[in-house]
């Protein structure tokens, strides 16, 4: 092997995922993952998780009330998303799947716009270049290649940005993330493959996705280090991601992070999880809740008091109210927009179809 090829042992994931916070909030120092967060940032992480959960719950309610067609909840995964997204700079790009409300809120992407996909108004409603946050991608794992190409493109002109792509445990079985890791490794693209292992791909449990010792082991075959963290521990997730991001930014190449978490809600609002998992399992998972854990930690650090609690609750409520107002009875899409963005210079035949619809709509009014 040539000298710039790492030894496999350097890439192997640790036997235990990085874990800094116990469920009761006890903090364990880890010299490999020192915390560089001040008090304000620690509170910010908590605030973002609470707001995420509140908006997520609001979205489920909106679906129940017929305002959204479907919704894919991220409940239980707030630490994995907020911790990882918080480790990036604003110039770094995020390529989400369709469950990344938490990461989107870190980037201040308007949740009302994000939910238009689920409302069926349009397929997206945010400009990716404003927040450096890609469009939600539904075909599983396909966005890993976009993140990789984007990172290659940045590296080609020495732009120090890093990209991060989110996918799930199910996504590690698809081909595209593997092709993406192959490309990323070969081109040393500064991309972080962030897998939220939430234990289920709709109903199919992890053991049906892989026989690998852990998902992070998959990275080794592509020359990427495989990291693991407790994905319900926002500090561990942040610290592990931070390290991988800085490594990528300094030119050492891509990395893979497996964040161990649990999807507390159904796959989407169309799903019935009682058919494939027990109440007992859910109760067990609830004990590792990421938000309670961070609250316990902040309390121990004297960073959590009534004033802060009220402030966070108010903000969560306000955001949820804004989302509700923005979605509730919002107009349906404009049918004429169907023709708007398909081609930059549409053909005559295409224009005739546009005119046919316009005429139908005009007829309907008369």
């Amino acid at each position, binding site marked *: 092997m040539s000298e710039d090829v790492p030894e496999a042992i350097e890439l192997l994931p640790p036997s235990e995922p990085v874990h800094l916070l116990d469920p009761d909030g006890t903090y364990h120092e880890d010299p490999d993952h020192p915390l560089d967060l001040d008090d304000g940032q620690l509170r910010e992480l908590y605030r973002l998780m609470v707001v995420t959960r509140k908006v997520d719950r609001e979205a489920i309610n909106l679906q129940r009330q017929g305002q959204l067609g479907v919704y894919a909840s991220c409940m239980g995964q707030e630490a994995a998303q907020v911790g990882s997204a918080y480790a990036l700079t604003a110039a770094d790009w995020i390529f989400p799947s369709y469950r990344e409300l938490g990461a989107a809120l870190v980037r201040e992407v308007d949740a009302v716009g994000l939910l238009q996909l689920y409302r069926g108004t349009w397929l997206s409603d945010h400009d990716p270049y404003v927040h450096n946050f890609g469009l939600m991608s539904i075909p599983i794992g396909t966005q890993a290649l976009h993140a990789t190409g*984007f990172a290659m493109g940045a590296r080609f002109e020495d732009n120090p940005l890093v990209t991060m792509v989110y996918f799930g445990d199910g996504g590690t079985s698809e081909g595209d993330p593997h092709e993406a890791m192959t490309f990323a490794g*070969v081109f040393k693209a500064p991309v972080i493959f962030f897998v939220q292992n939430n234990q289920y791909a709709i109903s199919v449990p992890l053991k049906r996705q892989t026989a690998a010792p852990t998902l992070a082991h998959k990275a080794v075959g592509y020359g990427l280090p495989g990291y693991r963290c407790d994905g319900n521990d926002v500090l561990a997730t942040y610290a592990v991601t931070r390290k991988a991001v800085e490594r990528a930014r300094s030119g050492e190449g891509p990395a893979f992070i497996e964040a161990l978490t649990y999807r507390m809600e159904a796959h989407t609002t169309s799903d019935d999880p009682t058919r494939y998992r027990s109440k007992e399992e859910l109760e067990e998972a609830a004990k590792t809740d990421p938000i309670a854990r961070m609250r316990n930690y902040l309390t121990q650090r004297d960073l959590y008091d009534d004033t802060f609690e009220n402030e966070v609750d108010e903000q969560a409520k306000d955001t949820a109210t804004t989302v509700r107002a923005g979605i509730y009875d919002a107009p349906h899409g404009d049918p004429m927009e169907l023709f708007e963005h398909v081609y930059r210079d549409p053909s005559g035949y295409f224009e005739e179809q546009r005119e046919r619809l316009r005429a139908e709509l005009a007829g309907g009014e008369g």
Partner: protein
Amino acid sequence: MAVTLAQAINAALADAMEADDRVLMFGEDVGRLGGVFRVTDGLQARFGEQRCFDTPLAESGIVGTAIGLAMYGWRPIAEMQFDGFTYPAFEQIVSHLAKMPNRSRGTVKLPVTIRIPYGGGIGAVEHHSESPEAYWAHTAGLKVMTPGTPEDGYSMMRAAIADDDPVIFMEPKRRYWMKSEAELPVETEPPRQAVVRREGTDATLVCYGPMVRTALEAAEAADDEGWSLEVLDLRSLAPLDTAALIDSVERTGRVIVIHEAAMTLGLGAEVAARIQERAFYHLESPVLRVTGFDTPYPPAKLEEYWLPDVDRILDAVERSLRY
């Protein structure tokens, strides 16, 4: 000086890369080797390993990273080595390349050109002779072009690279060595215009890509029978130049559509449908199709029985004239 189709496309790639340093060329074996058909010959030596580079052997990876590179601001040209190997990239092409600009309400621009050598007639093994153009033409958001002459090879390739919409550029591989006395650079008609390659009055041969030369040979041979055949080269398969089709039908009243791709739901079906929609009363006989059969592409020793040729075209012309 005589120039082949392969050389003309190569010159177009080089000139586009010279004119715009955001243009990248990548794929399997396109770097040091210069492509298995040498279409990218010399590009890496001239523009460096960052502008023209070899990728891992993974077609979905090639197209998917092209999308990411385009989102970043590059103008990627991605080569699929052969028609039959585009299928691993099908999802990236159909679900993202074609749809992302629309999904993004136009905020994401994907000026990506996918080059695909296609078609048979070179005695190749399985998967190396297919004509998958209908898949792309059926997909909203894609433009599909295919040159039938070296001049178009140059000019249409320049247009494809300059286009801000994604373009599937289908290269008729058995015509790579076809020569012309073209002076490069050359600018031919805009790609979306069909072009009359030969004027005629009795019937129109509608063709594209590898079948342009075959159709011209058939029209030549038909002269001996006293039949005057028009040859219309579509050039762009999406969008289709409906007006040019109607124009020609109004002149000749008879149409034979020719392509290598299998008959059912091939481009010929769309051409026939548009003609009967818009020129029904100008038709003297039904629109006929001379195409590959509805079978998988045959092994090399049998491809002559499968591919449309002059005799098969003339037979269809005769049926049309005697209708």
